[in-house]
């Protein structure tokens, strides 16, 4: 079969006796099936593997194959005076594996307010960055966010993106990737507006690189509302004021912006409160899977409750010395994820996996 191998490794194979994996495009088909950790190790195998696994097209295909992972933020109780956050992601499988007490977590660097996407026409990796600026003099400051687009691997100056004149007042919203990453669908990134008087979603078109807004069925605080992607459809969840019920809307028609209420999940609040040994507490829910599994937490306890789409309590988890907060759902279709920058390298954080981009300083 060696006659069909067109490309060979840069080195001679004459010394090796056994069969050798052909070095050509089938290598990508193999490597794309590995986890991000295993893939990163493969980068050190040889130069050609490093090159293959660094290509944007390969990374995108690899990213799409990765399972969805809930991202959980921990408020470390030991240092609660400093409100220090550690970020960690938990694989759904890990969540189901007892015992959880004492399970370590991976501290990640602070996530920057940025979103990564593949630019529609150029195929380049771009970053949409949000920076809250300080205006004014004599100590009077107002925070208005400014948006810039940067190109990975380019030394070009960041390009300022203006909001449309009819956009919601800039001071009422900004997207924070570390808390709720944007949802990528139909070539656009979507964010729910939190604590905004208007029922709107902000939309960033990754082809034209401009902002617009679209209708939302609900508005609420960040703890209460969550934008999701389910089966290629935008969805939004909302916890009611009593924190016992979650409503889930689906965007039936993307073009006209028609939402329908798809589900109402009633949680076993009494049961969960008895676990916490309290008469009353607030619960916040985060949908973490396509099967509408929900993770619930309250603001103070070390417990995390795992309910199914019917509102049945499936599992409960407890960490000692840390307060977990589900931060969202890392969808498999989403090229945008939480990002952090350290040492000038952009790091795309995907659950417990890191894919590092050789990249420009941000």
């Amino acid at each position: 079969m060696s006659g069909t191998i067109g490309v060979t490794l840069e080195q001679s194979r004459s010394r090796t006796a056994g069969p050798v994996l052909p070095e050509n495009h089938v290598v990508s088909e193999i490597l794309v099936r590995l986890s991000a950790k295993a893939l990163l190790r493969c980068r050190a195998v040889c130069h050609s593997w490093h090159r293959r696994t660094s290509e944007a097209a390969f990374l995108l295909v690899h990213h799409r194959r990765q399972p969805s992972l809930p991202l959980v933020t921990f408020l470390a109780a030991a240092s609660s005076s400093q409100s220090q956050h550690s970020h960690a992601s938990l694989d759904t499988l890990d969540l189901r594996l007892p015992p959880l007490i004492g399970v370590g977590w991976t501290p990640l660097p602070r996530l920057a307010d940025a979103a990564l996407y593949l630019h529609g026409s150029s195929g380049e990796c771009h970053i949409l960055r949000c920076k809250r600026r300080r205006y004014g003099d004599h100590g009077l400051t107002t925070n208005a966010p400014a948006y810039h687009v940067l190109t990975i691997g380019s030394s070009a100056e960041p390009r300022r993106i203006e909001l449309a004149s009819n956009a919601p007042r800039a001071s009422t919203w900004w997207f924070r990737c570390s808390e709720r990453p944007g949802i990528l669908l139909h070539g656009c990134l979507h964010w729910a507006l939190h604590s905004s008087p208007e029922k709107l979603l902000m939309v960033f078109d990754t082809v034209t690189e401009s902002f617009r807004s679209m209708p939302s069925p609900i508005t609420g605080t960040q703890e209460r509302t969550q934008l999701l992607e389910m089966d290629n459809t935008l969805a939004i969840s909302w916890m009611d004021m009593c924190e016992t019920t979650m409503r889930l809307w689906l965007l039936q028609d993307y073009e006209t912006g028609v939402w329908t209420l798809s589900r109402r999940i009633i949680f076993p609040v009494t049961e969960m409160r008895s676990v916490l040994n309290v008469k009353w507490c607030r619960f916040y829910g985060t949908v973490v899977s396509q099967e509408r599994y929900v993770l619930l937490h309250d603001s103070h306890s070390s417990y995390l409750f795992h309910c199914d789409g019917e509102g049945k309590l499936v599992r409960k988890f407890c960490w000692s010395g840390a307060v977990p907060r589900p931060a969202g759902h890392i969808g498999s279709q989403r090229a945008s994820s939480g990002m952090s920058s350290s040492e000038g390298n952009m790091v795309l954080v995907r659950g417990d996996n890191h894919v590092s981009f050789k990249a420009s300083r941000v």
Partner: protein
Amino acid sequence: MAAPESGDGNNGAARMVTLISSDNTRFEVEAAAASLSQTLQLTILDGGGGGGDGIPLPNVDSATLSKVLEYCIKHAPAAANGGAPNATAVDRAELERFDNEFVNIDQSVLYSLIMAAHNLEIEGLQSLVAKKVADMIKGKSPMEIRRTLGFPDPTPEEQAEMNAHMLEYGWAYE
């Protein structure tokens, strides 16, 4: 050898086609099985491969081709049912058992299969063999991967790069 689902509008006995390996061995196989190959499917739809003609496959030797056809014959009935959405659990389990055993083979045969599956564009076989090699890679260090896959020993510079990589991305090696 007549398959109960000779389907696709063919009436009566299943249509047969002949494939010719690089070392000139002739294989006669049901068109439905050979059509698992996207490459062959077009030729077969055009009426090729029948009678005494045969379809030459200059990139595939007879040992590999017979292995490829073993896979195609086993998977053809399920594929004819449109990916077998209504297949029974027993059928699926049987295919899974077959697949697991099928890739339990020498590395040289596995590598030949990878190339053949790619050249013939047999989607299921491509994923099956790619997954097998991926399983051989996962959990291994770069050095172990090189040895497993039969790559030559690294040069001192490559060794130094591997060490540097491990230092920089320690968390990926835990």
